[in-house]
């Protein structure tokens, strides 16, 4: 198919998507907006996790640690100055009077997460398999412990509250689109191929000149960047960040989304993040109807088990969406 036409389809789809976003933010109720926001944040988290775990093959249980870093950075930056002065006595003075908007907070959040990922990655990425998994889990726990104990900067277990509710659907959806685009482009570039090659056989990859540690670090850092941004969006959506929010449940949730979508497939991650957000809301509705609290997670676990048993490679495997395939099913102009 002509590549110009494909681009045309893509722009049309994007147009429709943002039209939907417009309708939802103008006419949708708060509840749907909130679900929409969370959905977009999950999309960012899942797609960026897929870059480091699915595509690059790093078994990481620590991804949410980067989200926590992003969230705290954004929280500290956007916290009203008066509160900052009262609560965060450990910050340097000049920071007390600063209160940024969402965009700078987001970028700095992503950047700091990336820097931390770089430092942590140099150490941790030398490990493989379960060893990498437990070391990254360790990273997550270290982040949590620091957040709990560094009273004068994070306010400890109480967390930072009263954050301005900057985040809205426009921000989250734009960030999601940018993340998807970037990861997609990386996947389709020599870097992406090198990542997969290293994942499949790191020694063989080195034998054709790929610097395996470097490419792993690259994937890890980029992935942390977007995850940090998701953290910033989350912080200014929920309005309170606390150490317990960025822990194992969220870790589990996004890994499940990634695996069910298909490790290595950006399309799969998007489908699965959207699908699971909706599924969890529906299940909660059901749970409320029968008033058996906890049943929604039980069903969720069973759904996941069935998916993984009957489609171990996930919804998309490592295949991707293409207009060509769509045309095969629906006749497009």
């Amino acid at each position, binding site marked *: 198919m002509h590549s110009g036409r494909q681009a045309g389809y893509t722009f049309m789809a994007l147009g429709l998507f943002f039209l939907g976003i417009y309708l939802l933010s103008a006419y949708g109720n708060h509840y749907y907006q909130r679900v929409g926001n969370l959905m977009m944040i999950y999309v960012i988290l899942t797609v960026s996790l897929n870059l480091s*775990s699915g595509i690059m093959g790093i*078994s990481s249980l620590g991804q949410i640690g980067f989200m926590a870093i992003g969230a705290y950075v954004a929280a500290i930056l956007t916290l009203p100055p008066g509160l900052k002065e009262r609560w965060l006595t450990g910050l340097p003075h000049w920071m007390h009077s600063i209160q940024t908007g969402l965009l700078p907070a987001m970028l700095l959040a992503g950047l700091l997460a990336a820097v931390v990922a770089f430092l942590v990655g140099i*150490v*941790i990425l*030398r*490990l*493989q*398999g*379960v*060893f990498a*998994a*437990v*070391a990254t*889990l*360790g*990273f997550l*726990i*270290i982040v949590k*412990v*620091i957040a*709990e*104990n560094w009273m004068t900067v994070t306010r400890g277990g109480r967390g930072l509250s009263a954050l301005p509710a900057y985040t809205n659907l426009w921000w989250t959806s734009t960030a999601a689109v940018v993340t998807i685009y970037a990861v997609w482009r990386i996947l389709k570039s020599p870097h992406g191929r090198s990542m997969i090659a290293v994942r499949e056989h790191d*020694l*063989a990859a080195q034998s054709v000149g790929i610097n395996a540690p470097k490419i792993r670090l690259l994937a890890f850092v980029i992935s942390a960047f977007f995850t940090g941004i998701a953290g910033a969006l989350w912080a200014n959506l929920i309005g309170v960040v606390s150490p317990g929010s960025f822990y194992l449940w969220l870790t*589990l949730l996004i*890994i*499940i989304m990634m*695996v069910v979508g298909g*490790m290595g497939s950006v399309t799969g991650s998007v489908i699965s993040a959207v699908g699971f957000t909706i599924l969890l809301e529906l299940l909660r509705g059901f749970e409320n109807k029968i008033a*058996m*609290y*906890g*049943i929604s*997670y*039980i069903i*969720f*676990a*069973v759904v*996941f*088990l069935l998916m*993984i*048993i009957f489609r*171990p490679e996930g919804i998309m495997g490592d295949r991707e969406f293409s207009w060509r395939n769509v045309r095969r099913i629906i006749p497009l102009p």
Partner: protein
Amino acid sequence: MSSTAYFFQQFINALSLGSIYALVTIGLAMVFSILRLINFAHGDLMMIGSYAILMLFNAGLPVWTAILAGVAISGITGIIMERLCYRPLRGSAEMNTLLTSFAVVVLLENGAVLFFGPNTQPFGILNFIQPTLAVGSLLISKIDAITVVLTLAILILTALFIKKTTLGISMRAVADDLTASQLVGIPLNRVIVSAFFIGSLFAGLAGLLWSARAGKIFPLMGFIPVVKAFVAAVIGGFGSIPGAVIGGYVLGFAEVFFVALLPPDFQGYRDAFVFVLLIIILLVRPQGILGAKAMERRI
């Protein structure tokens, strides 16, 4: 209290914490070494075993009968778990099985909350064992002494079992190459189920001792021990049974001595220190302390 007495008391505290960690870890390492499966539901087997013991005891069974039956129930639950959740996934990617075990955790914990209610219940089954034994100025808890002995006995027995018996070697063979084990005629299901059963029995036993130490049980109680065991197993060298025990003790000692030696303001950072220690150990020995001696992949 003199400073030597202080040190020895902390040493005993560390030993006692280490042994319960070691005991939890052995079962986890056993299942891992066979299936390359980190069974996060191991902690929930502990929980199920403990609830079973308590319910049977409350139903009027004698203590020891209740304990035996409860441990057996956790073993059987392990078998069911393998049959329903892990067998269909056999041979698939590590990430998939890891996640599956997380899903099993979600399933069991939420199920337990629905079934038993979310509240903590006292667990005083072993209270008839006098709590402490005083040696000079030192205090040794009897339950802990029992735990140490039990841990070492289990360690020796399993190590011999894995090394010497045909079933033990078969387990390692299955761990090594699933397809090849089928080709040489290892009865896969039997071997894996045995491994799961033994590992789950250990979980039941560890659950009993863990709950007796804490004096209480609750539906989410399995989570902390399994994370600790996971860490201990990695420190020791995943899959190695003696490694599991060493890892358990390293973890116990690290936790106790961080608290014992650090000023109170830093005590909160205990878990962070423990993980920094873990990462350092792994950088020096990427396979853990006793992990299969860095066998290079032949290419």
